[in-house]
């Protein structure tokens, strides 16, 4: 038993609304005549241009070039610092002649054993 049975028995489903004669026969043409004109169909997909197709690849290439440049600049920034440090270190080491070393050793009054210990860090 359907829940609306009581109403169905009492009233039924007959349609008591009516329409003017010929209304439905002319309805489609009447509706179609009242439709506004459309400028263009968006339903149809817009054909992509060559530029539209190339654009993403171009953007990706530009991104890689940019990244490569950044890496290059960053790494070249470090190199001179290292070079300068080395240069600075080398600048402090002046060439010393053997005669000068002999003179210094004479003045320091170091014997051969002390010199050996000094040079080799032997205990």
């Amino acid at each position, binding site marked *: 038993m359907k829940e609306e049975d009581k*109403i169905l028995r009492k009233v039924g489903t007959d*349609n008591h*609304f009516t329409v*003017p004669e010929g209304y*439905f026969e002319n309805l489609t043409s009447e509706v*179609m005549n009242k439709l506004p004109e459309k400028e263009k169909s968006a*339903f149809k997909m817009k054909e992509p241009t060559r530029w539209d197709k190339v654009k993403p690849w171009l953007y990706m290439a530009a991104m890689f070039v940019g990244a490569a440049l950044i890496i290059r600049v960053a790494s070249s920034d470090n190199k001179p610092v290292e070079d300068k440090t080395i240069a600075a270190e080398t600048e402090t080491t002046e060439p010393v002649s053997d005669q000068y070393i002999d003179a210094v050793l004479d003045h320091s009054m170091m014997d051969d054993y002390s010199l050996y210990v000094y040079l080799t860090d032997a205990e």
Partner: protein
Amino acid sequence: MNSYSEREVLALLQEESTQKKGFEMIVAEYSEQLYWQIRRMVLSHDDANDILQNTFIKAWINIDYFRAEAKLSTWLYRIALNECLTFLNKQRAMNTVDIDDPEIMVDQKLESDPYFSGDHIELLLQKALLSLPEKQRLVFNLKYYQEMKYEEMSDILGTSVGALKASYHHAVKKIEKFLEETD
């Protein structure tokens, strides 16, 4: 007349040159069933005709945005029933007729309407329907007169199947009570 095929109509809609032909097939297929649903909501033929025309104009303007995820009928019903609710709200706001008073509505809109041939019990049913909230009335009309499935109704109205079943149940109980008390 050619039989209606939704797939064929959708194919016609995709080409600008055949779009109008496809739309004409839609109008021919759905105008009558949409008209009756609208008519049951607004009662007067002239109002129903205006709303139906507006429904198809809106559908035509927005046909490019229709995606085949939903059925065309679901989409059209949604537009039509929204148009109905908008119309009723406008009427209410204009305050010319108390559309929430079933007695007044039936007296003014149905008893003098040359396009209504209902007898006493049918007038009572109309009064009972007019005493329902609009959404409940919509649900009752779709289920009772058109035997629409709750799932389809849910797609149209954006309401859960459970809520629609409850809504229909309440509508049936209220109408039964109204008919018992007034008959």
